[in-house]
Structures are given as structure tokens and as C-alpha cells.
């Protein structure tokens, strides 16, 4: 009863939608500062914990990757519904990034080009009902849900992510400027 009140650890969820996990790798690039971070936050749904769905309401959701298929939409909406602050982490979440290079192509033609059989028919296009359907285009996440903060970069550097998180965790408005602000 008389034990000192420790500040509540903030709950962080992370996910990679249509991304390459490069932003998650860059997140790990904060190196030994991960230990400091572990004292301040607790991870909920994340590839780091392998928790598949948000176990409770989270304070921060870091979203890597754009939105390329129906599953991405569901995951993104779940995280939006369960997070107070949602962050677009990296180029793909911010503007679609590399996967969005398919946006000037027709999805049907794209699939038949990739999966057609040697005799030219499109029979080999995967259509298992468990596979999420592709969207017509790859969308930045702010075109699907409301986004609170954007952290561009391909990937954003470990230092950029650390600056952002420490600003956020200490209650400052996160500010990313030269030389931490990079789009590449």
C-alpha cells in the first residue's frame, strides 16, 4: 500500500503491413538504448513479442509499411482502434514507398504477368480464400486511417526513431529536423 508509485509503463504495439521489416530492423538499431526503452515501455502486439492481437488498449502504435491488401486494412484498423497515438513509421507507411511502384500498373495484368503458366494462361494466379485480396493500389496509411505522427525515411535511422520516441515518451511534441529528417 505504501510502496512508491512507479510511473506506468507505456504500451507500444508495432506491425509491418506492406513493408520489408527494414523499419523494425532500424528500430533495433537503437542498440543498447533498447534496455533504457525497456524500462519505459512494454510491448503489446508486435513481431518482437509475437502477440497476434492487441491484448489491451495501447498508448502508441508504430506502423511500418503501406496498405496493399485487405488484411493490411484489417490490421491497420485494429491498431487504430486500440492505440491512442498511431505513428506512420518509414517511407512506405508515409507515401506507399517501394510497393507503390506497382500503382501505375493494372493489378490483374500484374498478377497474370507474375503467375501465368508457360502456355500463357493465368490459371496459376493464387486464389485460396485464405489469401488476402490485393487492393487496386498500394496506399499510404493516412489514406485509410487517421495518423497522429509521421516518421519518414527508408528506413528512418535508429537515431531518428530514438529521438522521436524519447520526445513522445517525455511528453514533448516530437520534432524531426536536419540531419535526422531523411526521405531515403
Amino acid at each position, binding site marked *: 500500500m505504501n510502496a512508491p508509485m512507479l510511473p506506468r509503463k507505456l504500451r507500444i504495439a508495432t506491425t509491418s503491413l506492406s513493408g520489408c521489416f527494414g523499419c523494425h530492423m532500424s528500430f533495433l538499431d537503437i542498440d543498447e538504448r533498447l534496455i533504457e526503452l525497456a524500462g519505459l515501455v512494454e510491448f503489446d502486439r508486435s513481431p518482437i513479442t509475437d502477440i497476434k492481437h492487441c491484448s489491451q488498449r495501447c498508448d502508441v502504435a508504430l506502423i511500418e509499411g503501406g496498405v496493399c491488401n485487405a488484411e493490411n486494412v484489417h490490421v491497420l484498423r485494429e491498431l487504430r482502434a486500440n492505440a491512442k497515438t498511431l505513428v*506512420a513509421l518509414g*517511407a512506405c507507411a*508515409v*507515401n*506507399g*514507398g*517501394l510497393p*507503390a*511502384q506497382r*500503382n*501505375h500498373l493494372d493489378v490483374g495484368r500484374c498478377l497474370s504477368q507474375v503467375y501465368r503458366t508457360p502456355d500463357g494462361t493465368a490459371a496459376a494466379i493464387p486464389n485460396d480464400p485464405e489469401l488476402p485480396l490485393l487492393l487496386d*493500389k498500394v*496506399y*499510404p496509411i*493516412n*489514406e485509410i486511417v487517421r*495518423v497522429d*505522427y*509521421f*516518421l*519518414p525515411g*527508408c528506413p528512418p535511422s535508429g537515431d531518428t526513431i530514438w529521438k522521436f520516441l524519447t520526445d513522445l515518451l517525455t511528453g514533448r511534441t516530437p*520534432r*524531426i*529536423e*536536419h*540531419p535526422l*529528417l*531523411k*526521405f*531515403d
Partner: protein
Amino acid sequence: MSEANNANTFSIDGQRIAFEPGQTILQAALAAGVYIPHLCHHPDLKPHGSCKLCTVVVNGRNGSACTQKAMPGLEVENNSPALNDRRRVLLQMLFVEGNHFCPGCEKSGNCQLQALAYDLEMLTPHFRHAFPVRQVDTSHPDVWLDRNRCVMCELCVRASRDLDGKNVFMLAGRGADSKIVVNSPSGLLGDSELAPDDRAAQVCPVGAILPKRVGYAVPIGQRQFDAQPISRQVDYLAGRHLADAETEVR
């Protein structure tokens, strides 16, 4: 200060700027080492006034610093949060109107559009992306034209017409259908008179017109806007780095 001293000066954000008669506000500012954000201006070319990033408030009224003449006694507001907010919105519109993907672009680090976005702390393009379908022209042996990255500043049009005397490029179409077209029988760059050492081939502020086989010869991290943000590179923007280089050679 005497009347004579005031004759050819005006002020930007309260700072007194001397000018030569005939100079625009932007030219006088750059000559005085004062940065005004801009994209479609080039020191060697006539003003165009299309990108509107250099919008300043002149005696209470908005105007383009690149087209408006410096006049004695003007009071110019430039580096204010309100103006920079509007400039950021203009940048965001430029980003969503084209296909600007910095991670895969050879111009990254040398690109003025990107450098402006960094300097104005544009973290997101914000608006709905148009993802337009635009043509890439790789027909020329030494230069390629990627219209995805074009911002319609017409620097190539002006450089080809006014500096190279060739008229290789033109802006065609209206509104969202605007595009750079090439003056050749086939419409392809390879059939035009463009030479790789033409100013038109080198003036593009973004990655729309690029030399071939150069790519990442200068690595990311050692490029023009890597060490210092664009707002601290007024000498470069005013073309003085070239003058300095020529002096050194002599």
C-alpha cells in the same frame, strides 16, 4: 540614416537589404545572403513565378519574390510560421501530384524539392496521392527523362530556349494533364537535339532529367544538401559557388 542610403534598400523581416535597380526581391535577397525558399528560380534564367514557394508578403500583400521587383522602402515578410506553413502545403501538393519516391531516386540528396521539404520539416505529403501514370523516356543515349518526378517548373524549357538556343522542351496540356513534351519528330528525347552538356540537361532541380551512367557515383550522405540544409546554402542557390570555382581555376 540619410535619404541617399535608403534610396536603394528595402527590408526583409526587418533586415535592411541593398539592391541594384532592376533586381527582383529574390535576386536582391540571395545577393545579400538572405534565404527565401524557391524551386522554379535559377540565377541564370528569367523569372517564371510558377512554383509560388517564394511567396512573401510585400507591404501587406502576397507576391512572388522571384517576379516582384525590389523597390525602395518595401517591407517584406519572409521567414514567418504562417508563410512557411503555406509553403509546406505547396510542397505537399507537389509531392502528391507526381510520383516522388526518394528511396529509389538517383537525385536524392541533390534534389531541391526534397531539400525544401526537409528544411520546412514536411513529414508527410498529407493529401491523397494522385499516383499519376506518366511516361519515362530513355531513348536518349546520355540523358533520361522521368516525367514521374517532374514539377513543371519549366527550367529545362527556359534553359533550352534561352541558354542553349535549341527549344528541346515545352510544357503541353493543361492542369492535371500538363506534361513536358520533347521537340522531335517522334516526340522522343533520343531524336531531339539535346546534348548531354546542354544546360537544359543539367538544370532540372528534381530527378526528372538525369544523366545516364552517373547514378550513385557520389554516395548518399555526401551530396549537396546532406551536410547543410538548403536554407544555409544561399551561395549555392545564387550560383556563387560556380563563380568561386571559376576564379580558383584562373
